[in-house]
């Protein structure tokens, strides 16, 4: 979901083409997630804290794994997603978290009103309220994701500032868009 919101081409490269390139950011993210998921589960002050919990929604056709879900004493789930960096202006992380909430609602039959994003850089938790607007956006994103994967087509690159932080830039080659014919013609010049 996040990949799609970041860049549809990146998303298609990863999920349609099955391309993956690790860079420093993705490696740090992977190691951090592995750590969180390894933590297992524990009970602290009446709350059960479960890490690496598998999630799915049949309605939205999503599946994945939650970093951490905290279950209140009354059983109400509260998802917590760990992020390596810092809070972003765009709502990519909130959509991702909301998708987890929708999965949890479908699986437990309970309403999930809130969750939190934990950012490694700032070591801050940001509470997220799953309002109607965020839910709608999340459902839309899931639908777009299905369209993209089912189409089997990788969108053409649209170079932007985001390419600089993208681990897949070397696979995507956002700069390679010029026509080939003049290039071939020039091969025997001079």
């Amino acid at each position, binding site marked *: 979901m996040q990949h799609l919101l970041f860049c549809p081409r990146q998303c298609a490269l990863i999920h*349609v*083409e*099955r*391309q993956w*390139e*690790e860079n420093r950011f993705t490696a740090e993210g992977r190691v951090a997630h592995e750590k969180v998921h390894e933590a297992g589960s524990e009970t602290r002050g009446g709350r059960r804290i479960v890490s690496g919990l598998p999630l799915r929604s049949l309605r939205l056709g999503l599946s994945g794994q939650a970093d951490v879900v905290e279950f209140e004493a009354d059983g109400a789930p509260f998802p917590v997603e760990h992020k390596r960096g810092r809070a972003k202006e765009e709502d990519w992380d909130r959509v991702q978290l909301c998708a987890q909430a929708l999965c949890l609602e479908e699986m437990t039959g309970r309403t999930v009103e809130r969750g939190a994003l934990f950012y490694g850089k700032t070591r801050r938790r940001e509470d997220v309220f799953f309002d109607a607007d965020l839910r709608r956006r999340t459902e839309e994103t899931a639908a777009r994701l299905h369209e993209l994967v089912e189409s*089997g087509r*990788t969108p*053409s*690159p649209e170079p932007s500032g985001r390419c600089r932080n993208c681990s897949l830039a*070397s*696979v995507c*080659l956002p*700069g*390679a*868009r*010029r*026509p*080939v*014919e003049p*290039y*071939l013609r020039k*091969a*025997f010049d001079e």
Partner: protein
Amino acid sequence: MKHYLNTLYVTTQGAYLAKDGECVLVRVEGEDRLRLPIHGLGGIVCFGQVSCSPFLLGHCAENGVGVSFLTERGRFLARVQGPVSGNVLLRREQYRRADDPAASAAAARCLLTGKIANCRAVLLRTARDHEDKVNAGALRGAAERLTDCGRRLDPGLPLDVLRGIEGEAGNAYFEVFDHLLTNQKEEFRFSGRSRRPPLDRINCLLSFFYVLLAHDVRSALESVGLDPAVGFLHRDRPGRPGLALDLMEEFRPVLADRLALSLVNLGQVQARGFRVEENGAVRMDDDTRKAVLVAYQKRKQEEMRHPFLDEKAPLGLMPYLQALLFARWLRGDLDGYPPFLWR
């Protein structure tokens, strides 16, 4: 830009390769000789009696590190590969275009442009740099014939006509190939291409470099999800890596031919490093093979500007970039395949 990853060549007989955490461990006679982090490796090539633990092979597959096994003399034996990577839709498109005569010819035309232009560049470069030592006139004459061949590669030509031009260009190039030698001319005289087995020292060098190059190009194709067996210029034949051979064409003059020549010209290989068998087959000795491998590795680390992408990258990364560009043509992002043109 993607990082260029080294290839580990293991020529020590009896060596055993194992996984040690995130590293490849090379053990010889019970002694740990070398430990290399896997993420720095792009491939492993084992010569002769070299074995690998299954866990190392699995780890390599997971990390996209191709492992090839060759005989001690460099004949290809086998290759270990993990689950087929990449996009099945891309491969289907590759098969569809390979089945379509017009699309195949379009691809072949681009591939041949690269091959002929790079052969020509090799001749012109030597004529320019060694004006006094070589028959520069003959080299320039052949280069002109190549220019003529190249300019006749018009869009829309059928595959058999393109092949005819390729044959003509190949003749023009190999006819003057011997003139590219400036040193040890007697010992390394080239009198036409011979292989399986190579019948002279220079062919022995060339064949060995082509094996190394085939490994690299094949790995590059697999890593972008293309099927190395289904070619355009080289048509399907069981056991033949058609697309790998296609993409190799533009690299042969630059990565193999020129390197073989400079090893001889600079005296980095000597005639006595080769053995001529009773039947005329020529073989390298172990020390020569090692020197040749080191030279190949070094050459791949040289930085160059990619003429189409206009970015700097080590020569060793170019096969990978070309594989990507080929995939881009198949996906319809590019209107043709831009070959690697060496200047």
